[in-house]
């Protein structure tokens, strides 16, 4: 259950940020989309909305919230499960509630507010999706949102970070069917996060050449992964000479997207927006460089040999 940010702006009178710190990580999320705007159905803006923040510690976002629920670290999944039971009036033991680090009153109040909302939204951040439980936490929250629709309108959406990572997700889905963690080594896309996801591939040493664009794994990945990147030929496209470029066999400087390279980027709610660059770069765009590398590869003899056009059953 998700929606575009314009829907939130126009309708959401109950907003929950879960495991995120928008005040510092997505500063304009409050003012442009979620909390402050006066809109069609919420003419008084902030006054017409209630904001609840669920996080493990007090961040700068607490100041903007009406209610702050400090969940015990690593207990998000438990809290969501308790809430799922409570909205359906299922029995919950005190021990189960105590485990979440919150009181019965706090939770009852939260449930009452959720049910009283006309249009509720959960925004969940890395604090939920990247801590213990990982995607299970996100799935549980999505289920809670789905189940809330028995009472009122409710949606949930991730607070995607980092530039155009949403665009990559969307494009891989329409071209390959899968959002990330893909292998083409049998000539068609296969998906297996944990096997084909980059950190796992690098830690196992399962690649013999890495092409890196718009990312700096040299600064963000665990040490064994970086060690493997140093061993194999690495090609980096980046507007700057980065940690990763320093260990690369080939570095190509490109124009930064949106500053001096034109194109499209997807917003976190999967709406594509055109970029309007302000500067002329002395460097080529990523698009041009990747296309030229691809065309150079295409000119070399096809390594695949004879294959059927289609498999009715995948192997």
């Amino acid at each position, binding site marked *: 259950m998700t*929606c575009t940010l314009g829907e939130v702006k126009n309708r959401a009178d109950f907003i929950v940020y879960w495991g995120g710190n928008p005040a510092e990580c997505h500063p304009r999320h409050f003012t442009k989309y979620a909390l402050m705007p006066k809109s069609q159905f919420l003419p008084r803006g902030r006054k017409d909305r209630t904001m609840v923040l669920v996080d493990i510690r007090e961040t700068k976002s607490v100041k903007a919230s009406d209610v702050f629920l400090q969940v015990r670290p690593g207990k998000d999944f438990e809290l969501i499960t308790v809430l799922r039971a409570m909205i359906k009036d299922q029995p919950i033991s005190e021990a189960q509630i105590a485990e979440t680090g919150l009181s019965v009153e706090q939770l009852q109040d939260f449930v009452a507010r959720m049910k009283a909302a006309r249009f509720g939204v959960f925004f969940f951040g890395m604090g939920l999706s990247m801590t213990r439980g990982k995607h299970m936490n996100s799935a549980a929250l999505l289920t809670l949102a789905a189940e809330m*629709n028995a009472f009122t*309108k409710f949606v949930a959406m991730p607070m995607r970070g980092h530039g155009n990572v949403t665009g990559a997700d969307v494009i891989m889905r329409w*071209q*390959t069917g899968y959002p990330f963690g893909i292998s083409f080594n049998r000539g068609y896309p296969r998906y297996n996060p944990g096997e084909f996801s980059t950190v796992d591939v690098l830690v196992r040493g399962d690649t013999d050449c890495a092409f890196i664009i718009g990312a700096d794994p040299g600064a963000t990945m665990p040490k064994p992964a970086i060690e493997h990147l140093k061993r194999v030929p690495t090609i980096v496209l980046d507007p700057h000479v980065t940690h990763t470029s320093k260990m690369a066999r080939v570095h190509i400087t490109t124009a930064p997207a949106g500053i001096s390279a034109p194109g499209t980027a997807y917003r976190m709610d999967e709406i594509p927006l055109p970029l309007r660059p302000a500067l002329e770069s002395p460097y080529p765009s990523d698009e041009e460089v990747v296309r030229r590398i691809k065309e150079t590869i295409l000119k070399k003899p096809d390594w*695949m040999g004879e294959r059927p056009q289609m498999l009715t059953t995948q192997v």
Partner: protein
Amino acid sequence: MRPRGCVPRGWQSENLKGPDRMLRITGGTVYDPANGINGEVRDLDVEDGKFVSSVTGGRTIDATGLVIFPEGVDVHTHVAGGSINFARAMTPEDHRRTQAFIRSQTRRSGLGGMAPTTFATGYLYAGMGFTTVNEAAVPVLSAPHTHEEIADIPIVDKSCLVLMANNEIMLDLLEAGEYERAKRMVAWHVWAAKAYGVKAVNPGGVAAWKWGKDAKQRSEPVEGYKNTTPGSIAASLAKIIDELGLPHPIHLHCNNLGAPGNVSTTLETMKHLEGHRAHLAHLQYHACGGDDWHAMKFEAAQLAEYFNAHPNMTTDAGAVLFGDTVTITADGPWQHLLYKLTGRKWGNLDVENETGCGIVPSSYRPSNLVNAVQWATGLELLLLIDDAWRVFLSTDHPNGACFWRYPEIIQLLMCADYRKECMAQLPPEIKNRITLPEIDRECMSFENCPVEMERIERAEIQQCIAA
């Protein structure tokens, strides 16, 4: 757009020079109902994309032993954009068990299944002899996304319809009686979304869904409005589209999809639209009689009778085939009901100003009475509508079944014995709920042309050669 790594358009291209402008196809068996050619073995000559009496030079294709027939046009399908892409994300398990296309020097890889990837979509449609597909639901806000995906569907021609019937600005204008401004707004939306026409989904109902509600009655005002009713929205849009002279009429998905008793809603809608052109989408889903799920029967005969008498309308069947699929529709309230009925995954995607979209994986089973009746109704509609030029074969891909299963429907239409065989699997309670057993029409490839009943909008035979 930039050229994609796909099969080149070949001789169709307008840029071709010299001998490449010519094409000769020899020895094929030609079916062309529009020109009265019924299974003749003959040669065809093409110059600049048009048939001519003879050409000299150019490429020759030997089509001996092959059938040549007019291109297929899928008038109502969901192959590109936010909703089908959401469905792809929701069904990785299906991608794993489905057919896989392997890349070559000229082809990209892809996966088929319930929600095929864009490249596979092009290959699968082309393989069935289709050349034109119409993505039937595009919210104006994410139209650029739809067009990006469309650019990655190779071989076939693509068009799309912009969603209008729940646009709040539009509803406000209609409520205020500002008809001329509403008309200009429709024109702007068609331009902005780069659409071929206008789609109206559950008029007023999706707007109400944004508050978790639905619009069930045609004559009652929509949630949040005083005078605007689903009926008045549909009628105004039909009039606007006629006055603007858009080539495709209003593409209407009626209210109350799939609900028992909705046939009365549908008939009432058809009456509202008298005097205008209209296309009624996936009619099967709007042909339910009875008062509840148990008493549910289908009223294809009643609808077909009305439809036959009203040449202002076209329709597509929205046929259902048994098996797994994923349902996606801008009809959010219906999808929430389906989620509650099936308890399966549910995705919902609301886009400001216009649309909501629900996504629920689903299976149609012959043992399920409602599914069985739906299956029969889709076929009944295709068989009972006399004028085959006004009814399109569709499954509302991927809702009723995936588009690559169209040949199964064609077999069902052409062969009464095969239909009987399939009907034997249906539950016994189905008696008196359907009329399919009484229909023994067999659509031969030429009779009214139902085999290729997709309208031949450009009356030219394309190079589709199907074995």
